[in-house]
Each structure stands twice: as C-alpha cells, then as structure tokens.
C-alpha cells in the first residue's frame, strides 16, 4: 500500500473541490433563475407598454422596427387570430412554451420569447445578442478551471509530503533490519521532520544501549580473563602445588571458568549478528569426525556438505558431544546423513534420557531440571548455543527419545543450507 496516503490526501482535495464546484454551480443557477424571472416580467410589461394595442398597423410596424434596431432583435407581432401584423428582422415563430423559461439557451444564444399582449395579440422576439441581467455565463467552466489549477498545484505538494514520509518509513525498516547506524534525513520544521527527528533520537539511544551492552560484555570477559590468566600462571609457578589432585582441580576449574566466559561472549555475539559473516561449504561428516576424535565419540555416516561457518559448526558439534558425555552416559555416538533432502546430524547417548515434559526448555540458557542439586550443575550455555548456532544456519534442533533409552539430539539442515 505504498503511496496510499498520497492517494488519500490528493483524492480528498479533489473531492472537496468537486463539492465546492457543484454547490457553487447550483447556487448560481438558482440566483440566476430568480433574477431571470424578475427580468422577464419587467420585459413583458415594457413590451406591452411600447406596442400600442389595437393601433394602426403602420405605427405598429414603425415601433417594432425601432425596437428591433434598438435591441438588435428579430421581432414578429401576431394578431390574436394568428395573422402576422408586423415584422422586423427575420420571422420569429410564436411558440408559447419558451415564454417564461430562460433568457439564454444552453448554447449561449438568446432564445426566442413570446409575450401575450392585453388584446390577445402575440409578440415573438429573438434577441441576437444577450440582453439583460444574468450575464454570469458558465460559472461551471470557471470552477472547473480553478479546480484544475489547484489540482495541478497541489500534486507536487502532496507528493513531496508523502515522499518524505516514505523516506522515514524506509529508514525505519532498514534500521529494524539490523542496520543500527541508519538515520533518516530531517528537513524543514514540520511534523514529518519532527517524526524523523524523534526516530533518529530513539535509534541513537537504542544503538548506544546495544553498543554499551556489547562493550560491557567484551570488557567484562577481558577483565575476568586477566585474573584467570594470572591464576593459571601462578599455579604453574607455585612449587608447593606441583602435581597432585588439588592442582588438577584448580586447573580444571580455571578451564571451566574460562569456557563459561567464552560461551557468554559467544552467545552475546550471536545475539547481535543477524547474518553469518563468512560461510563456506563444510563437510559436516569430516567436522563431526574431527570433534569425535577430540571428545572420544564414535562417528559414522556419509559425507554431507553444509553451507556455514566451520568454527561455529565445530562448536555446535562439540557442545552436543560434551552435553551427551556430561549429562548422558556412554557410549555416545554421532551420525551424519541425508534424510528427505536435508542433512541431519544425530548425537545420541545411552543415559537416563530427557523427560518428555522438559520439552524445549533444555535449550534455555542455564537450564536446570527441578530438584537437581547445585553441585550437580545445570546445563550451562552449551545447548542454548547449539540452538543459536543452528538458527544462524537455518537449521532446526530437537531432541528425541530413541528406542533403547538415552537421549538423541537431532540437527536438521534444510536443503537451502545443505549442499548435495
């Protein structure tokens, strides 16, 4: 419905012009008719007074000729019995019906009119030129002209107004699409400019907010890492900690903290991008086999190409495997294959499985099932990142309960992302 506002405003303008034009025309017509009616009465009285009733034909003829000359009209006088008794100019037929209608015919030429005198004789006359009041010819033509002028003059004004609104709308759409640095031009001081300025202000605020959020996360993770790096360093420097369970525990906890910091940073980065920066054809089976070798997970299947970011996909596979190892039970198996034209990755464990009631909540950040103790830990960000990464590849992720127990996570890359 682009430009519908323009059409509305413009049509409203034209419609009001039309209403004014019609109203004026009706008004003018009514007034003119009233004037015309008054004039005809006086005209008839004048003619009756000028023409001697029952007088001699010669003086009648002379008077008629005078009148004809004076008013530039054709005049014919009929006796009551229908005989022509005097003529000036061309013969005018005596047709009563015209008598008291309008002075002007619609073609702007005077109509013949007929006046009945006291003795019953008829005077038929036709003015060659318009005569008398009611000279307002064709008010409709004037109105049409005015309407046309206003219509043409209003077009660019209305068009300009709606174009500016359109520019603001397009800017908002680009901004909403993720181009947060988009601003719309602010021209003039009217309402459209005010809307544009308000939008720019709001966009500025939101952009700054998001930017500071991002910077906060980046800085926080850097700040968290500095002490982690020092701690890691100190563990190796401290002679009394050389080898032993306590040292390994410290190192493992440091690694876990570091991984958590990284996951938070990655999650926030994925939150802020709407499109992957670099994608390439990735051999999902090879990538899964690589991670399988790292995590100690058996991998099988057939080679399958997926368009995506190899590092993020590696992350997805690793998180699924680590999740299976941590929350399921061995053996953990991964399988890559084609199903109905889609590339499907399955990671299956043989643990207790996921209760059906849990549903998709297992993909929520830091999900922890009810009744689970603090030390047992939650799911962290692992599966939530899996869902985020899958989403960025147009893929869906779900879990099912396979026959024989355990849990099976299934990632389906649709044909668009999967390349045969």
């Amino acid at each position: 419905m682009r430009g519908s506002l323009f059409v509305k405003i413009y049509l409203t303008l034209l419609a009001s012009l039309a209403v004014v034009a019609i109203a004026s025309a009706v008004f003018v017509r009514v007034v003119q008719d009233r004037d015309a009616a008054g004039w005809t009465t006086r005209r008839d009285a004048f003619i009756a007074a000028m023409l001697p009733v029952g007088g001699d034909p010669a003086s009648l003829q002379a008077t008629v000729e005078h009148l004809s000359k004076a008013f530039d009209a054709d005049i014919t006088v009929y006796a009551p019995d229908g005989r022509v008794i005097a003529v000036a100019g061309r013969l005018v037929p005596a047709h009563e019906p015209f008598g008291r209608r309008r002075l002007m015919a619609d073609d702007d030429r005077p109509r013949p009119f007929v006046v009945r005198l006291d003795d019953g004789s008829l005077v038929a006359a036709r003015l060659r030129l318009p005569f008398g009041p009611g000279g307002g010819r064709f008010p409709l033509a004037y109105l049409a002209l005015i309407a046309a002028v206003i219509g043409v003059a209003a077009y660019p004004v209305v068009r300009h107004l709606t174009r500016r609104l359109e520019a603001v709308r397009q800017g908002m759409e680009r901004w909403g699409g993720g181009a947060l640095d988009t601003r719309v031009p602010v021209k003039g001081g009217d309402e459209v400019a005010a809307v544009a300025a308000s939008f720019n202000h709001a966009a500025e605020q939101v952009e700054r907010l998001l930017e500071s959020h991002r910077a906060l996360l980046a800085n926080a993770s850097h700040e968290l890492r500095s002490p982690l790096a020092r701690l890691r360093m100190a563990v190796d420097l401290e002679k009394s900690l050389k080898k032993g369970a306590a040292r390994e525990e410290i190192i493992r906890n440091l690694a876990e903290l570091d991984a958590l910091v990284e996951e938070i940073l990655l999650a926030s980065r994925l939150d802020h991008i709407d499109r992957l920066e670099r994608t390439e054809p990735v051999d999902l089976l090879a990538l899964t086999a690589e991670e399988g070798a790292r995590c100690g997970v058996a991998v099988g299947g057939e080679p399958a190409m997926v368009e995506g970011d190899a590092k993020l996909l590696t992350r997805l596979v690793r998180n699924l495997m680590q999740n299976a190892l941590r929350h399921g039970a061995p053996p953990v198996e991964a399988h890559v294959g084609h199903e109905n034209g889609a590339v499907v990755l399955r990671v299956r464990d043989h643990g207790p499985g996921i209760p059906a009631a849990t549903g998709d909540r297992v993909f929520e950040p830091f999900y922890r099932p009810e009744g689970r103790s603090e030390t047992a830990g939650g799911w962290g960000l692992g599966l939530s990142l899996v869902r985020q990464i899958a989403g960025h590849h147009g893929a869906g992720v779900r879990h099912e309960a396979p026959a024989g127990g355990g849990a099976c996570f299934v990632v389906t890359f649709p044909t668009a992302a999967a390349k045969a």
Partner: protein
Amino acid sequence: MADQVLIVDDDRRLSAMLARYLEENGFEAAAVETATAGLADIARGGPDAVVLDVMLPDMDGFEALRRIRQTSDVPVLMLTARGDETDRIVGLEIGADDYLPKPFNPRELLARLKAILRRRNGPAAAPSPRALRFGRLEIDPPSRSVRLDGQERPLTSHQFDLLVALAENAGRTLSREQLMDLVKGEQLEAFDRSIDVHVSRIRAAIEDDARHPRRIITVRGVGYVFARFQDDER
C-alpha cells in the same frame, strides 16, 4: 647465550610471573607495558622473540604488530582473547608467528616460544611461503619435509605425498579411492590396498598419540579426514 624474550602486556602482574617463569626455563625476559615502549625496544634490536598482548593501553596489538613488521622480522607470539576467531586470523595474516589464547598454559607458551625460535634460527627451517601450517604441524612441499614443533619428522616419499593429499583437503572426508586418485602418478602400485598401512605409519610420525589420532582421523566405512583445527585452535 640465552634468548631474550620481550613481553608486551599491560597486565604487570601477569608479565612479572611470566618473566619469572621464562627465566626459570632458561630465557632472559624483560617486560614493558605499552606498545610504544615495546616498539622502541625492538628498534634497538633487543629481543630474540616477542610475546605481544592483543589489548594494549596505547595501541591495539595488531597495529603494534604491523609496525614491528615494518622494520623487523623478530618472531612474535600473540596473546589473544579466546573465542575471538577473527583476531587470530588477522594476527596470522599480518605476520604473527603463532598465537595463544589467554588464559594459557605456561608450558604450552614455553613450547610454542621454543618452536618459533627454532623455526627462525634453524638453518634448514627457513619459513616457506608454500608450507601448510596446522597448529604445531608444518608441512613444506617444496623441501618435502614435515615438522612438528619445528622438529623434522621422517616420512617416505609415498607417505609424504599421501600426507600432502590429506592436508590439502583438510576438513573433507576422503575415501581410499579418492586418496589413491590424488596421489596416483609414479607409484601407483605402491599404494595398492595399503593406504591404511601408510596412514598408520604417518600417524606414528606426526601424532602425539598414534592410538588416539587427532590429525588424521578414521571415519568408519568412509575413509579419512585430515583435521582442520588442531592443537585446540578451534
């Protein structure tokens, strides 16, 4: 004479510990807190190697690296933030010899530092632009040599061809037939049904633990994959 290592990092407490650790392990170490001070040191021809943090107060580490490279080819090991992949790619493209995400295992830093110094100092180890690098592994087709941590690993000519074929297709599953097509040429019969044997010999040469291979991975029923991301590069 001990190699001198310059640490450029604004985390003074970490630098102090790292310097102590390096000195305990046979290096001479000095630490500065700003890129400007580091650049001045390098301009004086001081260090044999540089450990450069990516976040510095006066300049970002990549800019510092770019300026170092304008005048010097001193080996540089960059300390990056883990999880920021673009940083690492940029770092390598503009001439870092290696990189290590923070927080790092000090022993790993030591090993990598030794490796890049060996690469730079070793007479036979002039860095080849055509070399394939995968973390600690370096495959150099022109000289037909393979190095792990800068140390030469022995391979026969067939095995080297097979390794190059795998490495050039890193991240792709290759069937035994595909592998034979890739290395076929002079020694066709040498590979006759013996790919698996050759792979296990290559593994013995380049894997840290040949029973749990991380570089050449078997995909059951399909073939082999040469790993794209090794040594926790991710």
